[in-house]
């Protein structure tokens, strides 16, 4: 059983339309679409893990009709929910994909403020859930009212019980990369291109930063940079890997990192060796970007796509 933590989940509203123009009424017509799905990084990972075949409990904060909608969708996909419900609504994140102009516009809401009482309720529930899971995935942004020390505490509580934590949160939460010691670190750099207070891009920079993180977090086994899909950099204490998918045909970047991480955890818990875990994770990510939806839909295709992942071991 895997526990995914999504403190600031969302309902993702995705509009797929043609020729969007500002300052005009745009009515959806023809094959234009509006999809509403459960979202938030941890939620996506939960759905991905379930699709791959893991048993998952999703926790976090939810509220109002959007919160109920979120939980219902998770349960429809056979993910067990254990959210702390708050007075405020679960946020709605909007995205607009204009297939004619090939533009993607995203607007992410703050989320509702979490009260200190609810923070305690969540922690109590989290501690109880820790007694029944083998791994915790902490992913996504923090809602108003909660700072990164809360994540730090969640990681520590799990570590104290010898439960591995996979951390996939914004690279701006610097303190978490300075000794929180999660089992896996996969910084989310979509909105913040700095990592440990320095701008970061290029394989060299990723490797240096990864080594730095491994030194600062003595119990961390993996550091993975998935920011550049064509060059995924992964570090362990003994090796450094660069993975490159061949012949990428990107259709959709939604949830790519989340799919990758789900693939990683699935492979790791399956007992694959490190190289196979990394290849499998990339294959899941690859399969995801070449499909219109954000969900993992075809397990056979993933297996075939493993061959398309080039793995290079650096010294």
């Amino acid at each position: 059983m895997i526990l995914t933590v999504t403190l600031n989940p969302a309902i993702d509203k995705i509009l797929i339309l043609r020729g969007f123009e500002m300052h005009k009424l745009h009515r959806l017509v023809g094959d234009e679409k509006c999809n509403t799905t459960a979202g938030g990084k941890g939620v996506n990972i939960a759905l991905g893990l379930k699709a791959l075949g893991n048993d998952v409990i999703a926790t976090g904060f939810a509220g109002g009709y959007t919160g109920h909608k979120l939980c219902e969708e998770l349960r429809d996909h056979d993910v067990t929910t254990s959210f702390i419900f708050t007075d405020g609504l679960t946020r709605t994140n909007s995205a607009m994909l204009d297939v004619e102009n090939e533009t993607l516009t995203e607007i992410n809401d703050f989320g509702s403020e979490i009260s200190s009482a609810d923070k305690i309720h969540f922690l109590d529930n989290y501690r109880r859930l820790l007694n029944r899971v083998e791994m915790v995935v902490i992913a996504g942004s923090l809602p108003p009212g909660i700072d990164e020390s809360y994540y730090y505490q969640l990681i520590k509580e799990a570590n104290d019980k010898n439960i591995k934590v996979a951390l996939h949160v914004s690279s701006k939460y610097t303190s978490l990369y300075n000794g929180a010691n999660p089992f896996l670190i996969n910084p989310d750099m979509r909105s913040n291109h700095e990592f440990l207070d320095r701008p970061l891009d290029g394989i060299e920079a990723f490797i240096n930063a990864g080594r730095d993180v491994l030194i600062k977090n003595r119990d961390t086994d993996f550091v993975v940079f998935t920011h550049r899909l064509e060059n995924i950099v992964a570090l362990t204490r003994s090796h450094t890997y660069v993975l490159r998918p061949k012949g990428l045909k990107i259709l959709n970047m939604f949830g790519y990192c989340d799919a990758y991480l789900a693939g990683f955890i699935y492979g790791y818990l399956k007992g694959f060796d490190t190289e196979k875990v990394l290849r499998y994770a990339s294959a899941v990510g690859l399969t995801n970007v070449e499909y219109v939806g954000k969900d993992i839909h075809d397990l056979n295709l993933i297996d075939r796509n493993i061959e398309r992942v080039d793995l290079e071991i650096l010294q």
Partner: protein
Amino acid sequence: MKLVREYMTKDIVAVCNSSTVKRVIEVMVLHRLCAVPVVNKIGEYIGCISESDILNEAMPTYMKSIANTSVLANIDLVTNHLGQIINNPASDFIDKEYPIVKPDDTLSYAADLLFRSKRTMLPVVTGNELIGFFSRLDFLSIPLVKDD
């Protein structure tokens, strides 16, 4: 044979036995539930608290012995009583005999139990572990599921 595990609501909602009645009601409201399972500090299932358990406590004892509503209908006494018990510990209200089902119980058994016990939902428990609940609506909505 249809089993509870296939049709249950896999939602782990619970209050800790150290919570207050206020928290229990809050959880009922936020989660839209008529009964809330209670677990101990380490998450083991101990029992349930239903709306009627709290309503029962909120009603002054003497009120239940009065044959009709003539006396207190026009006074806020019951509301005041509810206000007085709101901060009591949830542990005072736990129904440890509240019926439960296991995930491998049959749907017929669960439906029968719901009917006999006049409950709106039954916690689904394996060993001491709460894994969700099975509600009247979970049962009643089975024929509504469309085959894809």
